[in-house]
């Protein structure tokens, strides 16, 4: 009972935040609504006892991806008027795509009958069950090659992104940090011993 109430409460917030993402005029508000979306969907996952996935969703998307997103969005100088210039001209295309997507979702849910009476929801888990252990075992035994491939792909993507944006300019003045760190007091300051002068 409590779980059902919590589910509907958070699902409502999730949908409202989702609407907020696409209707906010201010891009920062849209990004923040997206953060709220992630947080509430993490709670929904928590309700079906997928706590590892829920926490990782918060850790990766809320904690890292969206921070960088916000970072960029706050720095951008977005002119909302210019962005909306072609809105009515392309509206028919938008409505068409929306209709298609909704038709597909309805078709899948109704035709394949994905209601709770068919899937019966999540099976109750034994008390010693640990999400993290199960996921880790599956990922690093059965899907070991897949995860290695994904890791290599990500590495390639990182290297590609860096090499695309890295440019060396001529005449750039850079600090030689190892040299700076290696500096010793004797190189810079010379202590000279001098006899003190007698008092006049």
């Amino acid at each position, binding site marked *: 009972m409590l779980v059902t109430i919590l589910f509907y409460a958070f699902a409502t917030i999730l949908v409202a935040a989702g609407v907020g993402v696409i209707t906010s005029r201010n891009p*920062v508000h849209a990004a*923040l609504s997206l*953060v709220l979306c992630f947080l509430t969907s993490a709670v929904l996952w928590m309700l079906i006892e997928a*706590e*590892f996935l829920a*926490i*990782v969703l*918060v*850790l990766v998307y*809320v*904690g*890292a991806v969206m*921070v*960088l997103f*916000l*970072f960029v969005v*706050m*720095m951008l100088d977005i002119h909302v008027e210019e962005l909306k210039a072609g809105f009515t001209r392309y509206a028919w295309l938008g409505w068409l795509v929306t209709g298609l997507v909704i038709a597909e979702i309805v078709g899948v849910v109704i035709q394949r009958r994905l209601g709770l009476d068919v899937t019966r929801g999540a099976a109750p888990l034994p008390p010693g069950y*640990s*999400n*993290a*252990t199960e996921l880790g075992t599956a990922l690093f035994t059965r899907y070991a090659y897949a995860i290695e491939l994904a890791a290599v792909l990500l590495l390639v993507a990182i290297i590609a992104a860096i090499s695309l944006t890295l440019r060396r300019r001529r005449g750039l003045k850079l600090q030689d*940090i190892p040299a700076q760190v290696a500096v010793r007091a004797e190189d810079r300051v010379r202590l000279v011993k001098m006899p003190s002068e007698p008092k006049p």
Partner: protein
Amino acid sequence: MSPGGGWLSAHWQALPAFVHSTVFIVALTIVLILSVAYLTLWERKLIGWMQMRRGPNRVRLFGIPHTEYLGQPFADVVKLLIKEIVTPSRSNRVLFRLAPAITLIPAFAAWAVIPIAPGFAIADINAGLIYLLALTSVGVYGVILAGWASNSKYAFLGAMRSAAQIVAYEIAMGFALVGVLMAAGSLNLGVIVEHQRGAPLHWNLFWLFPLFMVYFISGVAETNRAPFDVAEGESEIVAGFHVEYSGIGFALFFLAEYANMILIAALTAIFFLGGWLSPLDGYLAADSGIRHVPLLGLALGDGTHWLVLKIFLLLCVFLWLRATFPRYRYDQIMRLGWKVLIPITIVWIAVEGVLAWFHVGPWRT
């Protein structure tokens, strides 16, 4: 136990679980807030002594003699509470009010999974370690939103600096924790502490010393403390992200900063210094006579007091850093985070893997 105590404990057991956890949460929160209050005082006193000053010495606690400075935190709180709250005219009001709360909530919520006594945490969950990582990464939103919502150049600059810094050091921190995770073989903080049982040489401090250094330095950077406090940088950008906050809004940021310091100190103690384990653990035989001495025996055994002592010592290191080091230059902060700390952690994780493979050290196989 006296009959009264038995009656009390029987009734306490009969209460539903949510009452138990609520009582623990309220108690822990009150203790934390009081610790924050006295940590600010201790900081001023300690740094004062280090710099041959006296520090605060005016406010007595309720006029009791010989408590020359113990009333200082309360005087500060009352002063901040009765100050006028100024909201900048073109700021974003909702986010401006929300930001201090967003900074504060994760700092307190993280304590839910901290094992504060042998075998006890408010929420003893299996994914405790990533819960902590997730919460500490949410805290950065408060700083970013405060800087953006204030609609002020200085505040915005501070927020940008802080966001870049926190994201950078979070990675080093996460990698350092991967090492701890490999050693203990569990994400549960209670298991991580239990794994370090034995003499202090079994603590992660010894086997994972580079990771300990990286974690603690990243922790200082995460909390925006000196020498990494460029987000505040009072000599360049006035007070950084909270420049527009006055009164209680500023107090909340202040509270969050110190609560985060205590949290990082507690986490370092748990991950690397054996948490509530007694340092005499391996040297004092379990059946030795001294353990049966009424108070001393308890004090020498495992318990919360050791965790508190370790947290206190680490907090003193925080303050010591602030009293001694000048502020880092911003590009040096980034260099330290990305080019020094992260490579160290990756190398040490590899070393740890090799050691574990050859069964050197206390690793699980």
